[in-house]
């Protein structure tokens, strides 16, 4: 499963794993969307340590999660970003929109 969830106090952590490209992004988006709708997190943390590859489809996944958490008045943080994914996020300037650890 590409999304694994753990609760830590008031923060909900979802660990994404595998390759995030256009082929897999939609399923991951839907899974995250359902998770956010079910748990209504005040603080959502997306842990990318298990992501082996990510292209701009991953940016769309993160922005969608941001919109949904935003709507609930919550915050989003992205953590444990592997080097390749970090370069993609930096090239796109995603750090201006989302807190990247």
């Amino acid at each position, binding site marked *: 499963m590409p999304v694994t969830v753990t609760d830590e106090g008031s923060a909900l952590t979802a660990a994404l794993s595998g390759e995030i490209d256009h082929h897999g992004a939609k399923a991951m988006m839907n899974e995250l969307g359902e998770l956010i709708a079910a748990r209504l997190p005040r603080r959502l943390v997306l842990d990318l340590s298990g992501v082996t590859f990510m292209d701009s489809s991953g940016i769309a996944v993160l922005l969608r999660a941001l919109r949904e958490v935003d709507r609930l008045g919550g915050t989003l943080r992205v953590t444990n970003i592997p080097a390749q994914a970090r370069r993609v996020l930096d*090239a796109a300037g995603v750090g201006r929109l989302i807190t990247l650890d």
Partner: protein
Amino acid sequence: MKSELLDQTVIVFSSRSANEGFARAAAACFAARLDPTLDELADVKTAVSEAVTNAIVHAYPDRLGKVTMRLRLYAGNVLEVQIKDSGVGIPDVEKAREPLYTTGNEERSGMGFTIMESFMDSLKVRSAVGKGTAVTMRKRFARRAGAAG
């Protein structure tokens, strides 16, 4: 300056999204003979993924088509990747290359060309409406001991 073509391979596949991963792996495999660093290899895979995804999502919006990936190795440790389709074409290439511009749905970020540009040394886009699009990217790899070319 025209540099010497040392080797090339051409791969043709259907515009199915499952082939995005295949195209990345094939390009990385071809580039491996340049003895690339992990970062260089990741850059090529990322740029290929963006170009192939564009062909799959935008060139053939409502049908399956053919995507051609041509990989070339030039003297001086240069890799050239060309991704070509025979799809709908891009009416305004300059506009399409702008950051955040997309004609796709919310699954697209509009950052594909920006990422190709920043991960490769050069990017050329040729397109004709109704005929298709060819994206050609080059990257020079740092010369390391044991590299071919």
